[in-house]
């Protein structure tokens, strides 16, 4: 029988609840909404004088967004030390896919003002229908591109 979760399902649900706990705790303690794509724009405000990056919404939030990002790295590192593989995780996805894909991810998420966490978790939890439209859109184009890349010899 075709399985929906060939690798098991418990770790997905546990991880998801933990992610929600992180975003929820941030909101309860500070009142801040923790989507992850904005840090990629707000951090540029440290080095670029361009008016776009110097907007208040980036300059005023750049410190906590970087601290939040630091927390993400620490949290994943705790997992690695506690239960991860010796020598670290590896990926077989080719470098060109990581690079080109990353460029489009960064450009698109910022143009859309949200990513999987910004629109997907924070936007949906704020009951915002533009975020639902964004989620359905990136799921659809993601499905197409992940399958097309196989046809052209990618991984």
């Amino acid at each position, binding site marked *: 029988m075709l399985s*929906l*979760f060939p690798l098991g399902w418990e770790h*997905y649900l*546990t*991880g*998801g609840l*933990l*992610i*929600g706990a992180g*975003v929820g705790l941030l909101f309860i*303690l500070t*009142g*801040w909404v*923790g989507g*992850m*794509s904005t840090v*990629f724009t707000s951090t*540029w405000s440290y080095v670029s004088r361009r*008016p*776009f990056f110097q907007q208040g*919404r980036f300059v005023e939030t750049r410190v*906590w967004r970087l*601290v*939040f990002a*630091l*927390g*993400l790295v*620490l*949290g*994943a590192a*705790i*997992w*690695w030390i506690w239960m991860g593989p010796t020598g670290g*995780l590896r*990926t077989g*996805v080719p470098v060109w896919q*990581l690079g080109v*894909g*990353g*460029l489009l*991810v*960064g450009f*698109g*998420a910022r*143009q*859309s*003002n949200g990513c*999987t*966490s910004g*629109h997907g978790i*924070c936007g949906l*939890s704020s009951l*915002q229908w*533009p975020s639902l*439209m964004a989620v359905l859109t*990136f799921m659809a184009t*993601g*499905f197409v591109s992940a399958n*097309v*890349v196989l046809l052209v010899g990618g991984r």
Partner: protein
Amino acid sequence: MSFHKFLAVVVSGILFGFGLAVSSMVSPEVVLSFLRFQDFGLMLVMGGAVSVTVLVYQLAPRLLGRPVLGDHFAVRPSVMDRDTVVGAAIFGIGWGLCGVCPGPAIAGLGTGNWSLMVALAGIAAGAYAQGWLKDRKTSGA
């Protein structure tokens, strides 16, 4: 930023990053297998995260009035325009190529998966290009 706030943000981030690693969303292969309909785990991750967050976002402002360490609860800015949809479409194309989105690109650094730094650099460059283009458009150049 006060020490208390610093601690609050770090601990929240640690939960987020630990959750991304536990749910294996830091592995591009797992994300790609969702987009290829081979493993629906990402739906459980998203569902689990949203089920907690929606409760907090909807109840905390009503029950607490103000955040523990702050003066008001922020409201996520939200508009329905061309940028939201076109940007999401571009984001999805990139996501399907690399299997990495902004959160896992950052958390991936903590798992020793150094090749994810290529995706991280790509995302940073893409974000810069987006701001640069927006600037050019608004200045009419």
